[in-house]
């Protein structure tokens, strides 16, 4: 049985132009949302050969960071209400951030309020360490996540 795509025809947005970072003279070079966004914008969607940026799942504004407390909060918006891929996207984000940031940062990943039918359970699932670890031990899921993170299909 072949499953149909969950969202067969997503709206594709243009990629935003990358701003080259200029070497600023002042010493304050703290982590800012843009830096995080630079890392996650190119993660591929599990379903389509588009990046999360293109599908407007993420934006720079949806990321907040508090360097003092060491917290990063990412809110993402699944393309459709019943998207079963929301958890996969969340897993990808978590994996990517784990690679790119020092472990002392606590990463919270949430779906945007009202953007998903099963908002609460998705949030709970994504921020439960053990469930995340367990999920990543499933070979198929692991492979899917890796494909999203390292794919060069874009």
């Amino acid at each position, binding site marked *: 049985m072949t499953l149909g795509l969950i969202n067969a025809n997503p709206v594709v947005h243009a990629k935003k132009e990358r701003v080259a*970072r200029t*070497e600023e003279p002042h*010493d304050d070079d*703290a982590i800012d949302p843009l830096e995080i966004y630079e890392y996650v914008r190119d993660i591929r969607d599990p379903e389509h050969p588009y990046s999360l940026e293109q599908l407007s799942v993420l934006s720079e504004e949806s990321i907040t960071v508090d360097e003092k407390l060491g917290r990063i909060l990412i809110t993402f918006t699944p393309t459709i209400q019943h998207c079963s891929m929301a958890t996969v996207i969340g897993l990808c984000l978590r994996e990517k951030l784990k*690679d790119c940031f020092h472990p002392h940062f606590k990463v919270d990943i949430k779906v945007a309020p009202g953007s998903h039918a099963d908002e609460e359970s998705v949030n709970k699932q994504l921020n439960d360490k053990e469930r995340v670890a367990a999920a990543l031990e499933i070979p198929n899921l692991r492979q899917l996540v890796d494909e999203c993170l390292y794919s060069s299909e874009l």
Partner: protein
Amino acid sequence: MLTYASTPLFAPFSIPLLLEKLSSSLPLTKVESFKYLSYCTSKYGVERMAEHFKTLWSSVKDATYVSPETNLSTEAGFMSEMGFQDSDIMKQAFVLLQELVQQSNGSFISLILEDEDIKIFMNSLNQYEDFDNIPIDIRQRLHAVGRIISVCVNTSIASCNKVFESFFPLLMTYLGLSVAKPHENSCLAEDYNPPGRLNFGALYLCVEVLSACRYLVGSDELTPIPDFANQTWGVMLHNVSKSLAMVFISLLRSNVAENSQNAYVCYGVKGLQNLATFPGSLLAVSKSTYDSILLKLMSVVTSDINKTFLWTLAMNALVEIGSFLDKCPDSERLSSYESIVVEKIFSLISSDDSNMPLSLKLQAAFEIGATGMNFMLRVVQGLDEAISATLSAVYAHGNRKSVEPTVKLLEYYSNKVLPWFHKSGGSEEIPLNFALSIWDKIENNRSFNLDSLENELLDATMMAMKQAVGSCSEGSQEKIINKALGVLLSSNCLQWMESISGNTPSEAEGLQQIHKLDSFAIRDEWITSLFASIVIALRPQTYIQNGKFILQFFITTLLNGHVPSAQALGSLVNKLPLKITGTPLSKNLCLDEAVDMIFHSCIWTSYNGSTYERGSSEIDLSSLRLCSLSPESDKIHATIGLAWIGKGLLMRGHEKVKDITMTLLNCMISDGDRGSLPNSKHPSLVCNDEDLHHQLMKSAADAFHIIMSDSESCLNKRYHATIRPLYKQRFSNTVMPILSTLMLKYDSPSIRSMLCRAIAYVVSDTPLTAILSEAKKLIPLLLDCLSMMVEDIMNKEIIYSVLLVISGILVDKNGQDAVAENAHSIVNQLIELTTYPHMMVIRETAVQCLAAISELPYTRIYPLRTLVLRAMLKALDDPKWVVRQEAVRCRQAWASIASRSLHF
């Protein structure tokens, strides 16, 4: 395209096709069809095209006038085209238009001139008086019409005449002028002010027409139009030129310009510039008008310095007028330009009581001067006078206020004016006179009224002096150096020489006397420095009188820590002839003699080559003992001197550089001998002594930096140095083995750190290809260097350059083999550097190097994986974004050599 245009027989088929293609909505298609059409027009001839004229015109009109596609370009502002930038379609349409007008002998142009739309537009210009009130689409149309008209005008004389007949009187009426009765124009009065707002549309079109005319007559200068005066447009233009000029001038008058009506100002200036650059033979403008144009522009340049926009425009216009004069000289105008503009500039520079800032003055002076050799000569005269006035203010009266302007003037002189003369092949009189006049100044001021040295001023003067001397020929250089020598001999500096002249230089007695005189008078220091800068910039062929004296003199001053003297000595030995040809005079100097003199002189003494065994401690110990006669501070100066002399010798490939290297090495390893010296002095003195000795060792190590690096201030191409190719390789090939054996031999940390310093300097300035062949041997050494130098914060620059060398080795194929052998130690060292706190680029480069190492053979690096990953985890927390980013990349690279997982 070539096929289409191959024969006129295709015309009946291809033209309709192309016209149809033109109606497409795709921009690219339009551009293409315009291109094809204009090419075909030039090939088919008028007869074939005539039947399509109407359609062609309407399509051109569509593309340009009816629905213009222009972009408002922000950067160019009003400087051109009213801020509009033509789209590709428009550009091609205008090309076609020009082709048609040119081919058609007047039939096409009448089509344009009789076009209803254009006529209506021209008649409606009255509605839009003020620039700000013109809506954007009308502005676009105005621009398009301007372009169409100017294309018509600049195609041929005949079409130009037609355009003038139909439009010019109308335009003039809008501007309040009458073509027919020019003398009744109200604006001829000097203080004419336009009533209310000037009609911008008319002004714009008028200026466009003018510049098109200018282009027309400028394009065929070689065949002057004989009956210019009889051409309709010539007559018309001649009649109104004066009043036009007055209108333009009135636009620049301050009360109008103040409203920041940039558009008006811009076209006012543009109009003036066009009027003033009509070729003289066609004399559209009378002399008095010409003069008043120049006067107005000049007054803007001198007084309206706060209005940057206006100022730049006026300045550019003046420059254009000047360079036009330079191209087609016209005696009458040349004289007015000189008397009004150049003389004004001249007086501006030479007087200092003006509200104009010096930098603007200098900019104006240089830009005007650069338009022609004669102007530049005059401007330079002004500069010379200004420099000499301020210099004497400084010398004679110790006027501190004059220091800053003098520095500016001198910098301008050496950075702009002298290079300009050099480029435009001007006479060498300018630099010659400049140098001589400075020496005159010094000669005439017997005593300097300065409290301090004014280092900044001295530097600027030395720089200008070097530049000036460097651009002179041998003959002039001789004149300068003879003059300078005269001043030198008459100064107090001579007493120095006298004090040692009776003794053979190496005698200790002489030394003692020198040290009594170890403070320079300010004037003497100036003379010495300037003299040194002359010697630095001499050409190799220049004959130096009294060379021995000069040599001796520099050796003496060098020991007082005068660095330019050291550089001058280096230049001397670099350039002296090997043998004197002709009758040998006792005072002349050849290289061997000079080297002998240097080596036998007081402080570093000769060394006997036979005692040297490679790597042994007996290297040249005799010289050291003699050194210890003099205080350590002098030895430091001597090592610096040796470094420059060594550099000079090395660059010409002289073998004596070996001796110098040995002496320097000796200085570095002399630490061991210190213990045997009697420690009878007061403890604090000993401490001080130790410190000095450390400094001596350090300066010996730094000497290698001087020898290997390229210097801006002397011994380079600009100052005519003799440079043997590959001299750096040769030096590093000889010196590196010695340094590495010494490293093995000594384990005193202070000596080792000095050796490391030297190695780091030598390696970082050696070309990479030379290093790669030696990479296997070098890498352990370099790692030692890094670990030694990490401790001192002052070393960060050297660490960085060594790190760059390592990264160079890493990316090379051959180098990688060498790295693989030492992978473990390299990785360890690099990991240490990833946390180097003092310099961000060091951390960044270290992380990059680590990432490059992950490319090495798997078996070599796998054991290091955990180590690197752990270090990268730390680097992820770096305060700098760049380092964090590199760390993520590096981490990824290392993680993927085993699996994708980052766990370890």
